[in-house]
Every structure is written in structure tokens, then in C-alpha cells.
């Protein structure tokens, strides 16, 4: 039943196992749960993800062995929704883009599974935790490897569900449950847009579909990109609404900071390294659509830059170690969106990868700290931990330098590439570049603030807590070390041309992002933007190389400056920090500390009125009042009144009945005779 197009593809049944193995693990642990010993649970969970990683590597190798333009493996398991012209397959596909994501997800996922063995070792819900975690990997891999947009959506919702389950993992605390629900609901608001985007896309594409072509298959969509052109802006923006939910962009970023209520490995895996980058992945996946609409690209870029700035400013004032990292994540996701918006999809994905390394590292490091501090998350009572937690400290520092963009750590390459592409693109230009540049400095500053407050100086905790401080077990430190190494060297595969490298990463992804130009060129839209992107990708002329080097140096210096300032202010000149807090009567600080009061605004503007409307107007008013009270019971009342009037006639007097009868007959007879 496969179309000729599909038959030409390389079938690779390996792919389904990459996805299904974690599901199998989840099923076993979920069903047997407490009947299994903890080590068995751990082995099943880690083993399934580890195996999935190995399979990903194998698949990656197979993919790499193919010629660049033919790098696509598919695995159609069966048909899913087939009705009339609508055809959606249940299938998976691996191309260079999804290969990168698959490796990151299973690789980092595996490390975090290992870490969780130690972190969750004392928890009652050990098996439940690993069930959810495996389920998450399953959903995320469905998202990444899905052959069509609807499969991606399945994974998209699936990761949202796992996120919900894991945020409210410790459901004893109402606050955790509320945070989980908030995450799910806010994501659903985004999915609302996503779904409409899918509908619009489908409705636009449906009439042009060839026989046997899957409607939402990425290949089909790419093939017919030219028909999508007229609706491209609307589709792209609707899909982007979904991305703002999942990837925590303005205006739907509010759930991510609250999501930190979940166990720290969850924050690292889902809310830093993998799930939240799904929006970026989706846009990169749909690049052939986005390049058709300069407007949509512009919106993506602006939202990304604005989010980066907003979150970075908030991160500077937070006291909860995980909250700082959460806002940092939002900010970095803004970077990735910015990259996609300016057409530098490869740079965006590059940052997804490096960010996965160092942000997972930072979160796991913070987890190690929290573990040592007996659950304390407030940095104001930490300090001086670098002596007691040496491994955590050094790896954390590596992560900090990486995110601050210190050469030659991973963050430098990806961040610099985004900055440069922003600067050199028409969509970005100097204004967005300026914002991104500013954010880079802020990032370095608040990260150093975090390091200083946590690890430097004297410990400010109670004696009781201080007594228990200890370095974490090897299951927790090993992933830290591995991730630290990756945070250092992980960026080297994208060593840019202007520094004498050949940027393997970009070349690897080039087929994915170049093929989008096919439809674009055919449609005659956005071809210019694409050409520009292509030019930028190849480094441009000599003058540009010099400029690129100059900007890179500037951002490096700027990052180092931020780090130094952060160190100075919070370790030596604490009075400066105080005076910053009290600047202009202290209100800027308060606004930032309270996250611009956005939550309160949503609450007051949408949630409360919504509830009041539902309860007083709709339920009590319309349902019970108008419909039931007035219409239904009103009708009943009329019937009752008429009935009671008629009842008067039934007085039990036979002679009255006889009279009525006689009169009635008489009237009738008279009528008939008169009528003639």
C-alpha cells in the first residue's frame, strides 16, 4: 500500500525498536511496580534506554554510510488514520536532523537515568519514577522520529503528559500537583494553536495529494511545499503557538519555572535538555514551511529574542537555585528560537545539542547540591560547598563557563554562531543582535552569581544541615563528569570556518535544511531569504570573516566580563549587590523578583473571570436559572396552572357532568344544522 515515493526509501526496522524499547521498560516497571526489587527496576529502566541509545548509534552509523542526499531511513509500521483521502501512517523516519536529536535524547537520557538511580534511591516511588521516565523517553523519541506531523504531535502530547506526571511526582504537596497541571494546561493552550496549524496545513494540502501519499508526512509536505505557500504564514504562526507552549516562549513560558517542582533529574532531562527543545526541533523540522514566510520568521525571531531577554533579567534576581536555572533555560530557548527565526536552523539545533549537555550538567549539579543540602534549594543559605563537593563544583564550573560562552567550550561555538547569523541576516539585523549580545553578558553574570552564592565563601546553612553535607555517590557524579566533558568538547564538531574548522555539524544537517529550498524556490517565495542563509552558511567573503572574528572576540570578552562582574559583586563587593537591589527605590528589583507579575496578570485577567463566568453566569445563571428554571420548569408551571383550572370542572357531581354533556351535544347539533 505504499506509494512509489515511499517505496524508494530505505526501510529500516531498527527505528521502531529505538522508540519501543523504553515503552517496554515502562510497561514492565509500571505493571509489576513494587513486585520488582529496586536494582531490577533500575536495570530495566536504564537498560532499555541504554539499548535505545546503542540502537540510535547504529542507526546513525547506517545513515552516515549513505550518500548525503539520500540520508533518510524510514520505518512504516502500519497505517494509523486512513479515511478517504486522509492517510496518516504509523511510522518513523531518521534523517540527519532526527539522528542528532535521537542521539542527544537517548544519550543524555541514559546519563540522567543513571544519575536518578542515586538521586531517587531513597524514594518510595522508585519504580513509578522510572516508569514515567521511560515513558518520557518513548514519547520524546516518537516526537523526534515520527514520520509525519501527527506522529510528532503524538509525541508532543506524550512528553507533555510525562512532564505533568513527573512534575506532580511528589503529589503529596498540593503545590507540585498544581504546577504539574499548570504545565499541562499551558501546553494545551499551545497545542490548540498547533492543532489548528495542522488543520490548516492539512486542508491546504489535501486537494493536491497524490495517490497513497500520507497527508502529514514530512516528505509529502516538503514535496508539495509550493502549494502551502499561500497559507504558509498562518500555518507557520499557528504551529509556532504550539512551540511557544512546549519551548516556553512568550507568552506561554510561565509553566516552566513552576515545573521545577519535579525531582531534579526530571528538570534536567525534560525541562532543560530535551522536551523543551521540541518546539525548536519542530520549527527546524518544518523549515521548508517557515522559509516560505518571512513574516513568520520575523515573529519567531522577535519572540525568541524577547524571551531570551525577559528570562535573563528575571534569572538575575531569583534565590532558588533551580529557578535561576529554569529562567536560564527559558532564556537559552529564546536563543534557539532566534536562530530558527533568522533562518539559521542548523545553529539552533547546534545550540539545542550543546545546551542539552551543559544545562543537563548544571541541573544535575544543582541536584547534587540539593541532595547534599538535605533538600534545601535557597542559595541564600548555601555557600562554601566547593570544598565538600569537589566533583560537583568543578563540573558545575565547567557548565557555567560553557553557558557563558567561554572559548573553547561547547557554548561558545553554538552561541557565537547564533549571534553571527542573527547579525548577518536581514530578519535579525543589529537590533536583535544587540539584544542577544546583551543577554549573553547577563547570562554570564547571573550564572557566576549562582556559582558564587552556592560554592564560594562560608556555608550559611544550619549546623544540622551542614553536618550532613557530603559528595554524591558515583551514580550521580559519573554522569556529571561525562556531561562536563561533553560540555567542553561537544562544540568542537561545529568548529566554524572562520577559526579554521570545517563545521561538520552544519554540513551534516545541510541536506535537511537545503531541501526546504526546493519548494520555496518553486513557489517563488522566500527564495531570497534562503539564498541569504546559504551564503551565510558558507562564510561569505574575506571582509565578513574579519567581521565574524571581531564579533566573536567581542562576545567572548563580554562573556568574561559578565563572569568577572558576577564574581566580584557577589564575592567581594556584596554592598554593590545590596545597592543594586535598592536601585530606584527597589522597585525594579521587586518587579524582577516577582517575574514581572505575569502570573498574577494571567490569574486576574483570565482565570478568575473565567471561573466566575462559568459558575455564576453559565451554571447558576443560564443552566439552572434560564433553561431549567424559566424554560423547563416554566413550561411545567404553565401546565400545572392550566391543569388546576381544569380540575375545577371535575367536581364529582354527576348531574353537572350530564349538564355539560347535554349542552355540548346541543351546541354541536345546532352548529351542524346551521352549517347546513
Amino acid at each position, binding site marked *: 500500500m505504499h506509494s512509489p515515493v515511499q517505496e524508494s526509501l530505505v526501510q529500516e526496522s531498527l527505528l521502531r525498536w529505538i522508540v519501543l524499547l523504553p515503552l517496554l521498560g515502562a510497561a514492565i516497571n509500571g505493571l509489576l511496580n513494587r513486585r520488582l526489587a529496586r536494582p531490577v527496576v533500575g536495570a530495566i529502566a536504564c537498560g532499555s534506554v541504554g539499548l535505545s541509545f546503542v540502537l540510535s548509534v547504529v542507526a546513525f552509523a547506517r545513515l552516515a554510510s549513505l550518500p548525503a542526499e539520500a540520508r533518510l531511513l524510514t520505518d512504516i509500521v502500519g497505517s494509523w488514520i486512513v479515511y478517504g483521502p486522509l492517510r496518516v501512517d504509523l511510522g518513523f523516519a531518521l534523517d540527519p536532523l532526527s539522528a542528532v536529536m535521537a542521539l542527544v535524547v537517548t544519550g543524555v537520557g541514559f546519563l540522567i537515568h543513571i544519575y536518578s538511580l542515586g538521586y531517587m534511591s531513597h524514594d518510595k516511588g522508585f519504580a513509578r519514577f522510572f516508569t514515567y521516565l521511560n515513558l518520557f523517553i518513548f514519547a520524546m523519541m516518537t516526537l523526534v522520529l515520527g514520520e509525519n506531523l501527527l506522529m510528532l504531535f503524538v509525541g508532543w502530547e506524550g512528553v507533555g503528559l510525562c512532564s505533568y506526571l513527573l512534575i506532580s511526582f511528589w503529589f503529596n504537596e498540593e503545590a507540585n500537583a498544581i504546577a504539574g497541571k499548570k504545565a499541562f494546561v499551558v501546553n494545551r493552550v499551545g497545542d490548540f494553536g498547533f492543532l489548528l496549524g495542522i488543520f490548516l496545513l492539512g486542508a491546504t494540502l489535501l486537494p493536491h495529494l497524490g495517490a497513497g501519499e500520507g497527508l502529514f508526512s514530512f516528505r509529502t509536505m516538503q514535496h508539495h511545499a509550493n502549494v502551502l505557500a499561500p497559507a504558509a504564514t498562518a500555518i507557520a504562526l499557528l504551529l509556532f503557538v504550539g512551540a511557544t507552549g512546549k519551548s516556553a516562549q512568550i507568552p506561554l513560558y510561565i509553566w516552566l519555572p513552576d515545573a521545577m517542582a519535579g525531582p531534579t533529574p526530571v528538570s534536567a532531562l525534560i525541562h532543560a535538555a530535551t522536551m523543551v527543545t521540541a518546539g525548536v526541533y519542530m520549527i527546524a523540522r518544518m523549515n521548508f514551511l517557515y522559509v516560505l514566510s518571512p513574516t513568520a520568521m520575523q515573529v519567531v525571531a522577535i519572540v525568541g529574542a524577547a524571551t531570551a531577554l525577559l528570562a535573563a533579567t528575571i534569572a538575575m534576581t531569583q534565590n532558588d537555585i533551580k529557578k535561576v536555572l529554569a529562567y536560564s533555560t527559558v532564556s537559552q530557548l529564546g536563543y534557539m528560537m532566534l536562530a530558527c527565526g533568522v533562518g539559521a536552523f542548523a545553529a539552533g539545533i547546534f545550540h539545542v545539542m550543546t545546551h542539552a549537555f551543559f544545562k543537563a550538567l548544571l541541573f544535575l549539579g544543582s541536584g547534587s547540591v540539593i541532595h547534599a543540602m538535605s533538600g534545601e534549594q535557597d542559595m541564600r543559605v548555601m555557600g562554601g560547598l566547593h570544598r565538600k563537593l569537589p566533583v560537583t563544583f568543578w563540573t558545575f564550573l565547567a557548565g557555567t563557563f560553557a553557558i557563558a560562552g567561554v572559548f573553547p567550550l561547547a557554548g561558545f561555538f553554538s552561541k557565537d554562531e547564533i549571534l553571527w547569523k542573527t547579525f548577518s541576516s536581514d530578519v535579525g539585523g543589529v537590533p536583535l543582535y544587540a539584544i542577544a549580545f546583551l543577554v549573553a553578558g547577563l547570562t554570564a553574570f547571573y550564572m557566576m552569581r549562582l556559582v558564587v552564592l552556592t560554592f564560594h565563601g562560608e556555608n550559611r546553612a544550619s549546623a544540622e544541615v551542614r553536618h550532613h553535607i557530603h559528595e554524591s555517590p558515583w551514580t550521580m557524579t559519573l554522569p556529571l563528569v561525562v556531561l562536563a566533558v561533553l560540555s567542553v568538547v561537544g562544540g568542537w564538531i561545529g568548529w566554524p570556518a572562520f577559526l579554521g574548522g570545517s563545521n561538520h555539524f552544519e554540513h551534516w544537517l545541510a541536506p535537511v535544511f537545503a531541501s526546504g529550498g526546493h519548494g520555496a524556490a518553486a513557489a517563488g517565495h522566500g527564495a531570497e531569504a534562503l539564498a541569504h542563509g546559504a551564503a551565510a552558511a558558507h562564510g561569505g567573503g574575506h571582509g565578513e570573516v574579519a567581521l565574524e572574528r571581531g564579533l566573536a572576540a567581542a562576545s567572548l570578552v563580554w562573556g568574561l566580563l559578565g563572569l568577572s562582574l558576577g564574581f566580584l559583586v557577589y564575592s567581594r563587593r556584596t554592598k554593590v549587590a545590596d545597592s543594586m537591589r535598592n536601585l530606584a527605590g527597589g522597585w525594579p528589583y521587586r518587579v524582577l523578583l516577582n517575574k514581572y507579575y505575569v502570573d498574577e496578570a494571567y490569574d486576574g485577567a483570565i482565570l478568575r473571570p473565567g471561573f466566575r463566568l462559568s459558575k455564576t453566569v453559565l451554571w447558576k445563571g443560564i443552566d439552572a436559572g434560564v433553561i431549567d428554571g424559566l424554560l423547563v420548569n416554566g413550561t411545567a408551571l404553565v401546565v400545572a396552572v392550566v391543569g388546576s383550572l381544569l*380540575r375545577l370542572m*371535575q*367536581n*364529582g*357531581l*354527576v*348531574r353537572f357532568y*350530564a*349538564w355539560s354533556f*347535554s349542552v355540548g351535544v346541543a351546541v354541536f347539533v345546532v352548529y351542524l344544522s346551521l352549517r347546513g
Partner: protein
Amino acid sequence: MVLTLNHFLALAAVVFVTGMAGFVVRRNAIVMLMCIELMLSAVNIVFAAFARHHGDAGGHVFVLMNFAVAAAEAAIGLAILVEIYRRRRTVDVDELKSLME
């Protein structure tokens, strides 16, 4: 004087109205029963008159059947009245209205 159909019909009308008036006016259930019989008789007269007029025996058949119905009705009615009288000690229909609701 030749008795025409109209004479019979007039007689029937008189009998019927008498019965009806009695039924409406009187309160004694036995008298009311008798009035019903009167009305039935009026109907019988009409049947018989028309049967004769058309030369069709069907009307006579109906008269006979009416007799049977009237007899049965009177028997049951009287039986009920006797029973009511035993329980209530009255046959005044204005007193008998417990079926009002």
C-alpha cells in the same frame, strides 16, 4: 291521520328530552337510571321507525340488541346502587363524589 316518519321522530324526541331532563334534574340515582332507560327507549323508537321507513331489518336488529344492553346496564347499575346504598345509606348522587380527584 297517517302516521309518518316525522311523527315517530317527534315522539322519540319528546321521550328523549324527558329522559334527559330527568337525568339532569333529579338527584335520586334510581330515578336517574330510569331516565337513562327512557333515553334508550327514544333511540329504539328512532331505530324502529327508520327500519320501517327503509324496509331494512337492520334497525330492528339494533333495537333488540339495545334491549339486551339496556337490561344488562340496568342490572349492573341497580346492583351497584344497592351496594352503594348498603355502605352509604343514600342514593343521592350529589353526596356521591369521592371520585372527584
